[in-house]
């Protein structure tokens, strides 16, 4: 390469699309996709207070004006962009934790693995509930029964446990990456501290999400056995219209 080429290379890279696309990927993971994850886990956690409470929370969301547009442009399309471009990024890396087993290098690998797991999980999750509703197989109201029936089976419970774990990890570590990428945490000390903070946020979200899953499975004779009296007193089930596996 002649020295004059150096100048032309610099000019050629005035094209900032690549940079902006990468930053958009980082941003989309936090807002709106990450923000939606928070909202979704938070709303679903209302299930712990029973069927009424859960259905009311879902009903409030379904009453939002322009919900279809919010879902399409605010959640679905950003999610598809984040997931597809994320796969492109993941395909460019060659993980090497075998030779360099540092914490951040493991997190680099886990971020990619959890991204792929979350992608697959979200695909199944959308098919299972959203697409079935669009196809008219599932009713638009009162998903509680369907969730209880599904999550009471060990297969779905494990799938949801892995999916929620992967999604929450991906979000929490992604939050750390966002801070570092966007020039918020620059010093080594701030990187360390934000790591602790993001781990705490991730742990709290994970407890919130898994608790909801356990609730759905547990109260209805699912994978975790339930003490007799609580099964009877449980505020979530109504043996008359909910399919219980072992009432």
């Amino acid at each position, binding site marked *: *390469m002649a020295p004059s*080429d*150096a100048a032309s*290379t*610099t000019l*050629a*890279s*005035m*094209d*900032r699309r*690549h*940079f*902006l696309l*990468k*930053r958009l990927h980082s941003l989309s993971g936090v807002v709106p996709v990450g923000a939606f994850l928070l909202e979704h886990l938070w709303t679903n956690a209302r299930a712990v207070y029973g069927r009424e409470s859960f259905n009311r929370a879902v009903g409030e969301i379904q009453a939002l004006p322009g919900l279809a547009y919010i879902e399409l442009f605010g959640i679905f399309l950003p999610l598809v962009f984040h997931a597809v471009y994320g796969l492109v*990024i993941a*395909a*460019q*890396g*060659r*993980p*090497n934790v*075998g*030779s*360099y087993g*540092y914490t*951040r*290098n493991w*997190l*680099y*690998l886990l971020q990619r693995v959890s991204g792929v797991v979350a992608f697959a999980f979200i695909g199944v999750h959308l098919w299972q509930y959203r697409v079935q509703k669009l196809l008219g197989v599932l009713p638009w109201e009162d998903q509680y029964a369907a969730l209880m029936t599904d999550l009471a089976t060990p297969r779905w419970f494990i799938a949801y446990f892995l999916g929620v774990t992967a999604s929450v990890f991906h979000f929490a570590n992604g939050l750390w*990456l966002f801070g*570092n*990428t*966007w*020039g918020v*945490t*620059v*010093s*080594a000390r701030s*990187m360390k501290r934000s790591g602790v903070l993001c781990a705490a946020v991730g742990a709290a979200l994970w407890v919130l999400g898994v608790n909801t899953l356990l609730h759905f499975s547990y109260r209805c004779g699912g994978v975790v056995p339930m003490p007799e009296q609580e099964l009877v007193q449980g505020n979530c089930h109504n043996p008359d219209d909910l399919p219980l596996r072992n009432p």
Partner: protein
Amino acid sequence: MGLDTVTLKIRRGEGPGPSRWETFKVPRRPMMNVVSCLLEVQKNPVTADGKASTPVQWDCSCLEEVCGACTMVINGRVRQSCSALVKDLSPEGQTVVLEPMSKFPRVRDLVVDRQRMFDALRKTRAWVEIDGTHQLGPGPRVSQEDQEVMYPLSRCMTCGCCVEACPNYNDRSAFLGPQVISLARLYNMHPSGSMQASQRLDALMGVGGIADCGKAQNCAEVCPKAIPLTESIAVLGRETLKRALFGWLLKG
């Protein structure tokens, strides 16, 4: 077994051709490093099982971990062979495994072509430009505070450790690597170098630029000069972002 020999297992080969492993046993002396082991192989290039071989090729120059030429993968980890001491690698006679760096085209045996790193220096204008040979007078003073940041950055010797350990620096990506990002930061802080600061930031916003960093942070872990590479990437991440978001508002 007595500790009168050092066993070296070396990945050898020519250019992009197939690799082969050869094992050598060389006399063990106190204070040996990997370079002095390779000098012993050169004196008597006979493998451990008695077959005549050829001297193993490798690069080295300063022998004091300053030039970076003798960088190779030793027992699976990238480092300089001059500062890799036999007493640490093989205290009880363990085999020392030597491989060329995997991220660069091999020339022969342990010698690799690090042109990709030098191309990256060019792309990012990682130097201080002079506009002629005439007397320019003394340069501006640099504050003590800036000097303390700049000195560690200036220790970079383009050895290749950071890019060898980087999972995003490979044949599937055009990533320029942590080294040039840190050097761009150094020259952007330099009073004369800062005159090309925007050009360096622009270069780092292209394909293979700073946005291709995957934050695995191996670079800072393996850097033999303890350069705060991850901090440099974060600093320039902030600078490039500011330029990308607000630069066009100030100047088309």
